[in-house]
């Protein structure tokens, strides 16, 4: 049996009378690249918040790397090796690029409770942030506040921060949202070049991107799983085409 990186069983997320997710069961094996698609309001981002621990499901369970994490808050899951990006840029905008990276690095060890010395002087932090900034080609922007970066660069920063915790499972919430096609293409290439051993679950609206990256595609519709299959099979699935293109009889 393959090891599962992330799994949900019968997840339900209810806000008052609104059912954002219902009976969502997912199994993502280690190393898989799963793309979540679905029309607006299908419950993709809500499911992401349930997976990452921002929301606690009203029913069902979530397993991360074989451990039940349904009741674990976001920061505990992050320490277990889960990292996420946000659909809307969610960075420490007034801090510099380097500070963003170093805060993220410090979160992964007991360094996060150090209060008597500079963040930058904590052993290993500066060397690791230098290396990361170098890898991601942010070295020449290191001392700029994130708010002064171009929008596309901030999108990349989301991924840089997620990757700097050396995650085993990476959740990408529409990494190309709001990007011009050329930038979206560049970012997609960045994602495709991430190490294969990292399990990636990604929400994506662009079908070309989704089908190019995915090992497997899950289609959400009205909060539930409509299809869960190989990309080439989903692409020709009648019910999927129906929700995206409308009922053929309507035309």
């Amino acid at each position, binding site marked *: 049996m393959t090891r599962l990186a992330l799994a949900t069983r019968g997840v339900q997320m209810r806000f008052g009378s609104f059912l954002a997710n219902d009976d969502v069961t997912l199994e993502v094996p280690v190393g898989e690249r799963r793309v979540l698609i679905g029309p607006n309001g299908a419950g993709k981002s809500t499911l992401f918040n349930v997976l990452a621990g921002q929301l606690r499901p009203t029913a069902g369970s979530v397993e991360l790397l074989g451990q039940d994490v349904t009741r674990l808050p976001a920061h505990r899951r992050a320490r277990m090796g889960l990292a996420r990006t946000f659909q809307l840029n969610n960075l420490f905008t007034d801090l510099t690029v380097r500070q963003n990276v170093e805060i993220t690095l410090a979160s992964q060890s007991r360094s996060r409770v150090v*209060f008597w010395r500079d963040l930058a002087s904590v052993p290993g932090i500066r060397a690791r942030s230098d290396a990361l900034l170098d890898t991601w080609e942010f070295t020449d922007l290191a001392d700029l506040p994130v708010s002064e970066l171009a929008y596309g660069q901030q999108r990349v920063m989301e991924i840089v921060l997620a990757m700097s915790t050396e995650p085993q499972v990476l959740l990408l919430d529409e990494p190309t949202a709001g990007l011009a096609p050329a930038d979206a293409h560049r970012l997609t290439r960045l994602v495709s070049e991430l190490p294969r051993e990292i399990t990636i679950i990604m929400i994506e609206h662009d079908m070309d991107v989704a089908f190019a990256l995915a090992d497997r595609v899950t289609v959400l519709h009205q909060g539930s799983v409509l299809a869960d299959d190989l990309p080439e099979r989903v692409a020709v699935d009648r019910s999927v085409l129906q929700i995206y293109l409308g009922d053929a009889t309507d035309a």
Partner: protein
Amino acid sequence: MHDSPRDRRHLVVPLLVAVGLLVLLLLPLIIPSFYLFLSTRILVFGLFATAFNVVFGYAGMPSLGHAAFFGAGAYVVGLASTRTELPFPVVLLLALLVGTALGVVFGLMNLRVRGIYLLLLTLALAQAVFGLAFTQVSITGGDNGIFGIAREGLVPVGLPYFYWFVLGIVGVSLALMWQFMRSPVGMAITGLRESESRLAATGYRVGMYRVWAFAVSGAFAALAGMLDAYLVGSVSPANLAFLLSAEVVVMAILGGARYFFGPFLGAALILGLEFYVSTFTTRWTIVLGALYIVTALFMSDGVLGRIAHWRQRSGQRAGTATGPGPDGSATSSGGPVPDGVPALPAGAALPSMSGSGPAEPTPSRSTASARTTASARTTEPRP
């Protein structure tokens, strides 16, 4: 070899700090004792405002209850010096302890509230502390407070000695807070203001850092209250009152809550203005109110924020790129790089990735493509 502006900054800043410290040290020999009293008050309230700003400006939590910490510190002195023979170091420790404990209580009680609700809850908690001091007449003296707090045994008699004493404590406290804010915990507290959800997703337990912020803020605010009690020689419920909580908010905003020394500057401006205005009229609070409105309307980023804004604008007009951060901590890249020129040859950057952990993306990108992305990035227009 000519000095770049950055190199000169490295010399100028310590020099200015040294001159400033020297002036502060020699102040008692220069100015008359009445102004010395005002200066001591400015130091005390500067400490209070800086402590307040850990919660307000750094953690982004609008507290309207900070008089509770200040007053608690003052009452510790009042009770200890009139009812016990405790030596000063013990009183100091007690004040810190009470401030920290009260801060933890405030932090825990405010874990689930944000924004305006946090403001109301901190106000309510502070009013509870105020009510306690007001009604427990047998202990606190009620409305009258506690009189006759003596400085004997603390320092030699005379305001100059007390001024130096306060200067020392305030200086050490500011240095400790400065260092704290630069530490991982302090940076995480700053992260609270920027984005709690990002902080949690990164692996920080958000609630813990909220309590941390209140605890540190409470400890130093209590220290300020302690110094105030020694300076004035009495304690009353006014040290716990809403007006003081509001005043410290104005101090922080007026000086610039985004800057470490902003609140201190705000305290100096407000106390200086209060001193000046009260030679004309007794209705100081009206002036304070007007100042509050003007600050809110025209200077929500404070005096330091305005100065930074003007400097940035004049810098842009002069056609030079503005420097990165106010702390000038650039070491690796040496500041802004001319547009279109990558700081490092992109090809040279790639081999250094190997061996620095599994977090790296596979270095399969060609040198050529890496170079184009790097240069494309640096030529993108910046806002």
